[in-house]
């Protein structure tokens, strides 16, 4: 290969921004995607994208505060330098997207308008109508189309990435992909491969994610030896519309505008909800959290809704878990003005008008904070060294990961509107890093052995493919197995996690994987065979499901989206001031012990027997010392007071900590 070429897998926000940057820097790009890139899942994001801006700056905001909010929101489980770098790039990224023509909403004077999102005090979120993700994706898609016309980018749409190809030294030299129309295999030699394949919501059966979010590409990299970080952290959104095919997001703003969440006191009361008198309704959020009411933080709302349905049996319906989200007490005019767009979604897909009938909603899996482990090089100022070949490289040299499929930016919990930023940022930032890696990759490919490596890999994939097609008389149906996997994962590894359930779920998933080997296909042809493509990707869900379950089982604490009641740290129960003080001290002691033990990312590598082997990686929290998240806790003020006293007493020590070098797993 004389001209350097990079293979990018996935054309969502992350893959497209990397492609655009690489093409601009003169690198040829092959861009592979399951669907036309313009149809990638990023198109679904509605809310917006975060960044400090000149307005918030004048209200006291700064890049540092955005960085701090992200780290605090993520319960400190992320290396801080990459997050700091991202927050600093935020303003530039919004400016760039603005120049690319994204129709951001405007102020009367013609500046970009901003709204406020969860987890911050500032109006940091730029938005374009109710379809920000779509608008950002289209702007990048248009630039990449322009490079395509110039011959700098070649798109391979309706292609499936099957495996990275590694040379004898373990460096990634390209990949094998399959054409989803002709079912032909093709080897893509490349100087580097970038995975930008998005989330893995389909592991949970139905989620708020698109049908292409199978996690298959990531799983294939993991099975080839790449490490997977923080798998157990899966964000569940409190309010989604349960559908037979998908759980569609219902924005938080419905509660923000006064929506009330309730269930009938009589289990599965069959009356029309409008006929159920007030006294026979249980407004459980308002009852349990009089101070915050329906606007409790996301994770609490999620847990309470889940609890009232599963543990108290008060789901509105018998066969389907859901609660009412009621807006009918608000005037039609207000609703149309403030919530028009999102109410139309409900109406369109449920065929029911939420202005006159309470909506039925339930929490749904929404985002994966975990993903492929990636490296970074820390700069002297505590950010990332631009252009370092280590940035975003997985444990396989030459294989990079960006966007939702890496584990880098969101720790234990992602803040709203931060993902679109991390996707575009990592895409732009990875390009020069990949280019510097070419030097390290020299000295291979000239000899005949390079061809052999690709031939062997292609042969392996062809054989695997044939074995699916020729398998006869199997008893199992891949679609129903997928349903079962979704049920197991949703029950054990979402909102509330218990060790006995996780252990059982792990065994169940292993059994399911065995049964998957017995799948027989109803389509054995070799033309647009969606049946075999789905069956393969189902098989690749099990390894990641096991990573999630094992990571969750081992993590005996509560952090961000990972909640185990057994290890929860309740607030203060005592009434006498002395007792209260003692409890607050004890709380802080326990918090410190827990931080020492668990402020670590889980790193999974596939073991020789196919089971994940999990180790832990220290987190570089040298810039902002970890502090407790106390939102909604009884006695929070007192605990905070004690905490601050301790911090003040310890200042010299934390200054010393700031000079510490980052610790990363050995694989570099």
């Amino acid at each position, binding site marked *: 290969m004389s001209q350097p070429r990079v293979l990018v897998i996935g054309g969502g926000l992350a893959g497209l921004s990397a492609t655009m940057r690489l093409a601009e820097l003169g690198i040829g790009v092959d861009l592979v995607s399951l669907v036309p890139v313009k149809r990638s899942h990023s198109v679904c994001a509605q809310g917006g994208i975060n960044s400090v801006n000149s307005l918030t700056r004048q209200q006291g905001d700064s890049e540092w505060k955005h960085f701090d909010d992200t780290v605090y929101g993520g319960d400190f489980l992320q290396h801080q330098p990459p997050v700091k770098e991202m927050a600093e790039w935020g303003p530039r990224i919004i400016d760039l997207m603005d120049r690319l023509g994204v129709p951001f909403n*405007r102020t009367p004077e*013609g500046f970009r308008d901003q709204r406020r999102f969860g987890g911050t005090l500032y109006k940091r979120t730029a938005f374009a109508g109710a379809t920000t993700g779509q608008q950002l994706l289209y702007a990048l898609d248009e*630039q990449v189309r322009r490079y395509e016309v110039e011959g700098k980018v070649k798109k391979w749409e309706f292609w499936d990435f099957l495996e990275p190809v590694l040379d004898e030294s373990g460096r990634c030299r390209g990949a094998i992909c399959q054409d989803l129309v002709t079912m032909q295999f093709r080897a893509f030699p490349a100087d580097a491969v970038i995975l930008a394949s998005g989330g893995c919501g389909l592991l949970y059966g139905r989620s708020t994610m698109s049908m292409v979010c199978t996690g298959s590409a990531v799983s294939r990299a993991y099975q080839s030896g790449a490490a997977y970080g923080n798998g157990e952290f899966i964000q569940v959104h409190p309010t989604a519309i349960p559908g037979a095919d998908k759980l569609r997001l219902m924005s938080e703003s419905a509660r923000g505008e006064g929506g009330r969440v309730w269930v009938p006191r009589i289990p599965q009361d069959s009356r029309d909800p409008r006929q159920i008198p007030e006294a026979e309704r249980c407004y459980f959020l308002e009852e349990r959290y009089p101070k915050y009411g329906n606007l409790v933080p996301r994770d609490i709302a999620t847990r309470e809704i889940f609890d009232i349905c599963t543990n108290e049996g008060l789901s509105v319906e018998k066969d389907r878990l859901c609660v009412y989200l009621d807006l009918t007490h608000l005037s039609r005019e207000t609703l149309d003005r403030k919530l028009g767009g999102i109410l139309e979604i409900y109406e369109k897909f449920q065929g029911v008008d939420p202005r006159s009938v309470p909506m039925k909603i339930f929490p749904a899996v929404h985002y994966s904070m975990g993903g492929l482990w990636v490296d970074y090089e820390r700069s002297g100022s505590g950010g990332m060294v631009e252009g370092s070949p280590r940035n975003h490289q997985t444990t396989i040299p030459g294989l990079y990961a960006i966007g939702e499929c890496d584990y880098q930016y969101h720790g234990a919990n992602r803040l709203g509107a931060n993902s679109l930023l991390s996707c575009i940022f990592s895409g732009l930032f990875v390009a020069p890093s990949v280019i510097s890696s070419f030097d390290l990759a020299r000295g291979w490919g000239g000899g005949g052995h390079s061809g052999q490596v690709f031939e062997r890999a292609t042969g392996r994939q062809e054989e695997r493919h044939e074995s699916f097609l020729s398998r006869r008389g199997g008893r199992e149906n891949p679609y129903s197995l997928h349903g079962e996997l979704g049920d197991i994962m949703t029950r054990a590894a979402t909102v509330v996690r218990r060790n006995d359930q996780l252990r059982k779920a792990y065994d169940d998933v292993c059994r399911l994987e065995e049964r998957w080997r017995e799948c027989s296909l109803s389509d054995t042809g070799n033309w647009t065979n969606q049946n075999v493509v789905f069956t393969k990707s189902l098989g690749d869900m099990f390894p990641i499901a096991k990573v999630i379950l094992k990571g969750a089982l081992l993590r005996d604490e509560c952090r961000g989206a990972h909640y185990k009641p057994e290890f929860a740290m309740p607030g203060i129960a005592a009434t006498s001031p002395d007792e209260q003080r003692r409890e607050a001290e004890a709380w802080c002691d326990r918090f410190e012990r827990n931080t020492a033990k668990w402020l670590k990312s889980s790193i999974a590598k596939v073991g020789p027997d196919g089971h994940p082997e999990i180790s832990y990686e220290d987190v570089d929290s040298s810039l902002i010392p970890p502090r407790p998240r106390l939102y909604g806790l009884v006695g929070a003020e007192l605990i905070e007071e004690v905490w601050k006293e301790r911090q003040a007493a310890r200042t010299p020590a934390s200054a010393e900590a700031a000079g510490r070098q980052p610790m990363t797993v050995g694989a570099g």
Partner: protein
Amino acid sequence: MIRAVETDVAATDADSSVAVKTIRVRVLRQDAPGRESYWERHDVPYEPNMNIISVLQKIAAKATSADGRAVPPVAWDCSCLEEVCGSCTMLVNGRTRMACSALVDKLLVENADEIVIEPMTKFPVVRDLVVDRRRLFRSLERVKAWVPVDGSYDQGPGPRISPKEQEDAYPLSTCISCGCCLEACPQFTKIEVIRRDDESQEEFDARRKAAFDKGFLGAHAISQAMLFNAHPTGGMIADERLKAVTSQGGIQMCGNAQNCVAVCPKQIPLTRSIARAGRAATLWAIKRLFDR
């Protein structure tokens, strides 16, 4: 649009009050390009709140036709399931629409006897309901549907834009490239190019592109041309877009039948874009006359 059929809540929410227990579905299938198409019947158990995607999912899982034969699952495209990715366009009961937002309860009100599902007719069938819509994206290349920025390095913010301009641009920018407008357009006719045995992939791609470039651009692309011409930076190559819009396969082919605007799932004001393009093209032609 949504309120056209005011289905009673009780009827959609409670299984018992709906008479149908089995939905009869007829699907027009085709095994590969160039093959004969054929009808196949499927019975799908009724559930409340289904859409056409969940019907197709059930058909795929069962893989047995209504007369009890084991059949390969029907192939179709979908992804977002919330009418924003543009994947799942097909004809349902004869009308071009998005399968994910086509609700069974409403379709049964239209016709309780059966639901008929067919692939789009203006694009080559790949298999069953999957069609090849690359021509639609080629039209976007033809009209240079992008802002010609210098590059992605930091150059400060984009141009100031008034709320009015944003409100005009935003709806046009929500086009999901579904192709409904093309399916409904009498001027947009199918172009199917089959690869010859003696032809390389590159030769075939070039020949196909040339064939596309003779055909009508389509309402979606004309509308995108207007979107970018109205943008302060995009407008810097307005002439190039107008040239594309007035060349072979351009706006002169549009018969103003307005079918396109009636079927667009995003209610994009296509006829307004077409009218604007027509006016701009005329002015541009006059200007060129004087510039000569």
